[in-house]
């Protein structure tokens, strides 16, 4: 009879002990482990929104004003070629994104055929505007998710072509963090939601990370060097830089030149915000020096580079058969990253001059139809050349149009 209360007491003691053990274990569990627990047992992702302290995105200022590389007249001629003359029907997000990053959100044009920066921004950020162009049958560009808003990307019609390209372009265009984003249901979203969703679903080993690096760098560099993704992996700008340097140099978007631009941008951000460790910064710098040496050796006599620029001297000695647009890609993109690179990462000045001369002439020689077909590549030429004059294309164009007003007859004759 006496044993029953004693059993009950010991039973109760064990219950208290066990509950206390689990409570204590939970209290003592560190943040990372708690995230792990929540992920496995509650299905809650470890990602927590990354703090962003700025409303305006950072801008990487070009370092040179070189009229000897590109004159006002040549710059105007090139910019005139890449005016955003897009028809409203079936506007390609990839073209709009390229145009917007080049011209900026505040761009206006006297030419009525040209689409303003704000209109382009609206097309990319407002589902209703997108539907006006593509109709109801097309899948939305803006994908609403419980966790935020994402951009439909890939090779299919009406999609942004590259992952995070939309984000990088809207950011480079100067859109503020509170820019409203209207998805199909019109939920109250802003650019901040797109950015956080992108940070959340980022995968380091996906095929392209060039624009991710840009989009993230221009927003979070002042406040965060690292963050945790939805799977619990710790990401950092170090990792992003390593990923951008990985593999054969030509194997990246636009013959690998976007990787170079993104790496250069990370170095510039690191100058100001110390986002890279010393060892990784050193590795990135050495990588860019390699690129410098490769393009120094691989430039053709007339100033252009081809897509196999990483082959160095061999690219010139054993030239490959290639199409013009591929040389436009390589030459235009190299001029673009060089415009934000310190002089020690430049090939000899004469080579930059030659490259600029070649690309200006080629761009001027294109018919409107040819430009339309290869708009994205030529937009980089305009952006690069404006950088070499340390001027924003929209500002330059506005001033140019003030001095050289738009004349419909002349435009029609052209």
């Amino acid at each position, binding site marked *: 009879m006496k044993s029953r209360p004693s059993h009950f007491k*010991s039973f109760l003691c064990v219950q208290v002990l066990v509950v206390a053990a*689990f409570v204590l274990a939970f209290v003592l569990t560190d943040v990372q482990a708690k995230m792990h627990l929540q992920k496995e047992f509650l299905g809650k992702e470890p990602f927590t929104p990354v703090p962003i302290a700025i409303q305006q995105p950072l801008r990487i200022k070009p370092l040179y004003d070189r009229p000897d590389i590109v004159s006002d007249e040549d710059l105007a001629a090139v910019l005139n070629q890449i005016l955003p003359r897009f028809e409203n029907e079936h506007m390609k997000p990839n073209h709009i994104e390229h145009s917007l990053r080049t011209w900026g959100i505040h761009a206006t044009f006297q030419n009525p055929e040209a689409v303003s920066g704000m209109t382009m921004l609206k097309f990319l950020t407002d589902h209703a505007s997108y539907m006006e162009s593509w109709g109801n049958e097309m899948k939305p560009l803006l994908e609403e998710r419980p966790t935020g808003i994402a951009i439909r990307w890939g090779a299919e019609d009406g999609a942004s072509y590259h992952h995070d390209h939309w984000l990088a372009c809207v950011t480079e265009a100067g859109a503020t963090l509170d820019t409203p984003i209207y998805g199909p249901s019109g939920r109250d979203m802003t650019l901040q939601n797109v950015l956080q969703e992108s940070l959340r679903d980022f995968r380091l*080993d996906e095929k392209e990370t060039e624009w991710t690096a840009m989009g993230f760098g221009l927003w979070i560099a002042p406040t965060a060097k690292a963050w945790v993704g939805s799977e619990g992996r710790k990401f950092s700008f170090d990792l992003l830089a390593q990923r951008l340097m990985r*593999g054969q140099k030509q194997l990246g978007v636009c013959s690998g030149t976007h990787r170079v631009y993104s790496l250069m941008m990370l170095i510039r951000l690191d100058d100001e915000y110390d986002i890279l460790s010393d060892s990784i910064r050193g590795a990135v710098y050495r990588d860019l020096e390699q690129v410098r040496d490769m393009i120094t050796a691989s430039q053709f006599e007339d100033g252009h580079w081809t897509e196999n620029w990483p082959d160095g001297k061999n690219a010139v000695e054993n030239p490959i058969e290639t199409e013009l647009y591929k040389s436009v890609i390589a030459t235009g993109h190299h001029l673009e990253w060089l415009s934000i690179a310190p002089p020690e990462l430049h090939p000899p000045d004469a080579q930059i001059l030659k490259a600029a001369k070649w690309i200006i002439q080629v761009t001027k020689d294109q018919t409107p139809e040819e430009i339309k077909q290869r708009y994205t590549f030529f937009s980089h030429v305009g952006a690069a050349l404006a950088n070499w004059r340390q001027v924003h294309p929209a500002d330059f164009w506005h001033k140019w149009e003030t001095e050289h007003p738009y004349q419909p007859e002349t435009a029609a004759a052209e």
Partner: protein
Amino acid sequence: MSTTIEDLALEQNETSPVQYQTEDGSPNVALLQDRSPKWMRSSRAALVLTSALGILFLFASYMIPIWHTDIWGHLSYGRWIWEHGQLPDTEPLMPLSIGVSMIDTAWLSQLGSYLLYGAVGVSGIKFIFAASIVMTAGCISIPLLKRTNNLWAALLSVGVFFWVDYQQLLIVRPQLAGLVCFAAIFAMATSYRWRRAYTILIPLLFVLWANLHGSFVVGIAVLGALCVGRAIDVYLKTKRLKLVFAERRTRELFLVTELAAAAALINPYGLAIYSEVFAISSNTNLQSLLEWDPLTLRMKQGRAAAAIALSLVFLYRLSPRRVSFSEVLILVGLGGGALWTSRMIVWWAPVAAYYASLHLAAVWANWRGFPTVAERKGSTTIALLGILWIFIAISPMADAVRHGVPKDHKQALAKLRKNVSTGTPLDAVEYLKDNPPVGQIFNTYEWGDYLLWAGPKDLQVFVASHAHLIPTEVWNDYLQIQATAGNWSDKLDRYGVNAVVIDKQGRSNLIEALEGLPAIWEKKFANNTGAVFYRKKPI
């Protein structure tokens, strides 16, 4: 033990003279009485069983080479922990997994085996491998022998366990430590008499288990099943719910299950150890590994399991022994787990071996009568200990303790070669050490662990057996490359792979494909097990 004839003499009838000597003048041993404590006495059957386990120990020590996967990876993590004096919070060894969160559920096994390897070399690994198998077999067979007095049943349990689990046991990994804990806990929890010490011993064992391997949750599940099964049995017998918890064994099992679950929290990760166990088992990368496939009859272990399962059905039909609900729950639960993923067979086999032998002994007793209770003697225990000492003394571990670890590299390599599976890339690694590749390498999963362990310093291994720590994209790319599927060559370029280190088994297609690209790849090394290719122009 002391045996005196003086005491015996007192007990003799004073009328009959004590014959201290036999007729031929030699001492009369019949007068000797066993004065050893009862707990120290052993039967001849125990001696035979010990000898059988000893033979199994030597067989595992000498005849089963160390498998080329897993253990080397675990040793590498153990080395990292030792060198850094801390546990990694992200994957530290594979460059393509940087930043991937890591909860090291086997840290104690890794550290322990690394230190043992450092002390006695590969013999130490062979020792823990063989000892784990024998201890598990012992935890099944010794209680069986005590319970049934049937030596053949006990020996059969060892045979069944080894037969069904053979493929799983081949791979040296922390799971073996988990298996020993499992068997020990199972033996205690199913013992005929519940001892109070078990209430302490079992949770203590769980503290150890939770730090040795993530499989401790299987132990908690088995304890839970034993408790639930017992409760059902009591209810079916009494039809009174109140009595279920009043029954001592049910209550003890319930409490010990709770205490075990709490004890497992004593680990460096606390509560997160539980979530990690579930995270690993549900990791999508593992779906492409054969050992995580469901158990089928196409597998040897599947056929063995099917045979034992059928035998169990047959034995249950014949056995006069009551079939407890607990054993049905455990057998069905663990069996179902094995059908889900074949790795679970490792837990099912000892349980099935135990119950099959238990019921076979009961059938035998029903048919031929109960075996006579064997005489237990202290002298048999002496013989048993002597046999144990002999088995240990002639093991590779004892040899290493006596003679030390070879200092000369060639001798060490020769010894290693004798002790590891032929699939171990010993020669390929020697080549890599002499000609260290620059940057990223591509290697097959099976070789990743040994490359991490023995490869040149800072070798950038692509994948290793800790597949759950590899980003899904990298793992999928790995699968494509090793199968020469899709744009595999382009992927090698994109990862900046400058050397390919691959085994021949199942990868001859990749070897042929690389041989077909002589402008890019040059075969630098090849032998019966694999090949090493270097990129002509490193990226």
